[in-house]
């Protein structure tokens, strides 16, 4: 996986992408979808949700992950730390805080041959 720009990546077809979310000062209130279908966190990650999917292409197209981070009654300083990584290497991270105006993030992964 290569970072093209923040939240924009390229990844090879067949590569596994992992998105790991760490909630801090807040419960697990994360929702995600990939290309029109709900993206479910891995069952072994109830308190730090981890989402995984494979880049399937076709080459030149992009996969779209939409995520929303909620903060119901969370205290000051609550945030989610998010790490994005690819099975062929490369990683990136970003944070969504309670005080942010935008609490839903779109990530896109351009498939390469």
């Amino acid at each position: 996986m290569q970072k093209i720009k923040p939240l924009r990546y390229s990844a090879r077809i067949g590569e596994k992408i992992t998105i790991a979310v760490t909630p801090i000062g807040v419960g697990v209130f994360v929702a995600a979808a990939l290309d029109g279908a709900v993206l479910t966190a891995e069952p072994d990650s109830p308190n730090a949700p981890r989402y995984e999917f494979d880049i399937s292409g076709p080459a030149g197209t992009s996969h779209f992950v939409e995520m929303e981070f909620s903060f119901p009654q969370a205290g000051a300083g609550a945030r989610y730390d998010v790490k994005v990584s690819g099975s062929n290497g490369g990683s990136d991270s970003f944070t969504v805080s309670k005080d942010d105006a935008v609490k839903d993030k779109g990530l896109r992964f351009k498939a390469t041959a």
Partner: protein
Amino acid sequence: MKTLCGILTIVVVFFICGINVKAQQSPSLESLKEQIRTLEQIDRDPNTPPEVKTLNQSFLAERRSQLRDLTQKRIDSLRAYLSSVRASLSSSEIERVQQAVDELQTSLAEPQLKASADSAAAAAPVSGPTTATPDSNARSAANTPRVANAVAEVRPAAPQTPLTPVTDCTSDNSYTNAPPLLTEITERVADDIVNGKNAEEMVAGSFAKMYSYTVADALTVNSPVAVRTIRSLKAYQYLGETARIDKQVGAGSSSAGTTSAIEKPGFARLLGFAIEKGAILKDVEGSSLTLSTSPYVLFTMNGDGDTAENYARAGLLNRIGVSATFNIEDQNSVLASARRNQLTDWSVRARLYGDRSTRSKAFQKAWRDDIQPAIERRLAVLSGVERFISVHQSEFPDLDATNDQVDSAVASLMNSAAYKDANDADKKKMLSNTILCNIKSGVFDDINAHPQRVSESTRNQIVNNFVPSLAAALDNLEVVRGVLKDKLDALAKGPLATFAYTNHREPATSDYSEFKFLFEQDKTLFGMLNIVGNASFTMYNKPNALLNQSRIRDINAALSFEGAVDSPFLKNQPDLSKITYAFTGTYQRMRENEGLAGRKPDLVGLQFKLDVPIYGGFNFPIALTYTNGTEHTNRNDKRLNFGFKFDMDKLFALTKLIGMP
């Protein structure tokens, strides 16, 4: 003859190109205009061979881009000049400068600077930036053959270079009738950028949504048949966040200076402090400072912090709270009063039953089962249409190129003197305008300029599938918003039982210990009011027989009926705390007062208390109290107490609110 013509034309083109090399060293508006005029003549000449025309068109596009950039730089320079020396200029001089700016602005709209979409599209892909205007953008995508819907047949558009940002997008919003969904997310992005977030990250994180909204707008607004337009959909608001009202942030009911006649079983898990003035069932005036925390805070200092993982592992530590209350002498430096000799009491509380935190397992399960699916539905609709557009990208303006165009425009804006000198509100407006303006020209205008590029099946998919699906998802979210509100209300009103131990320090008499059971249950009376009950007894650590003291100091009971209404002071604010009111009755049996002249062993108190949230984190509690006596006198007393409370849990929100205009 035709061959000779071609050779001569090539010589002319390269002669002009040679001039341009010189012009690039010292470009002038006039020389660029002259070159463009010459190149346009060659372009229009029917005798120009096709290969020369193609080459000529690429040079023409490059000149136009240079001329546009240079004109914009002149405008920026003149504006910066006017801004810095305006006070030193006469009105006529200001007018002259303004006139020069206006002329340059007008020249930006001249046909000479307007790239012809058709001629540019016919040109071979150029290595330099193409010209872009709000009306027409030359895109190689226009030449890419349209493909069927199947993913396997996808033919990605040819690689595109970033488009030149549209100029003069900051002063006005050219996309005045943009869908509310689009303007709302754009304003949020602008808000985060102004607050210091990385601009590219903020734009990228929302760009696919913005793009999809704009595509849907372009396709629905001019639909030949009546369809639900995306403009009819309301802006999306994240599911609400409300404040807790069950926490005992102020001093306990028996501390000096408290306005509470009854204690609540909740407690601040992180640091909180409150300052209150006044007294109830005490005949001293005083002020108190309460500091409270939890051992859980210590548990989180293992390097990971207050993560959901740590919270789940902490177990019992989340059920314990500790606090200390101090007398305050210096109102200007309240924390300096938090010294041992100012300590009036300290307490430990343990939650026995119930959990009112949204981090509780029960609430998280309710969220997963009832709330999250509605959020996921909207996200699935959005990511679905984004993917759909991606596999049909030859029918639409290039997503990445348009994103880059917006990035470039935002970066250019943020480097401008006008932006740097603007206040935060103006910066947000400038950023919003820039994003909307560029996305309009790059997507909305482009689609409308090439209506034939979007196939009927693709159009149908977006107009008749995406927009209705999004509308349904948003409608469903509104329903779920009500469900969430009910769940939060239920969470705040669930039964809660706490045991509290308090050590009271009484320099004038004797220190004593208080053992208290606190219970709260909502809607037990007439299904309307919240009921809070306390029952406690206190014991002297070292009873003094000379003061008629025995081991048991007193037995105490309190009952409170509470209600809440929305606060008019917090409209349009993220803090959704409510005005709470409470009728409280207390009874205290003071054994040591038995048989003592001037004292009563049975003390009764009645209180009406109003707690009004004024501004994020600040509350104004006011209480009217009647007592038939106090611990030290048998005189009736009527008293009005007031104060203010400050919740540290809302500190950052408060700081942000103070910073808002």
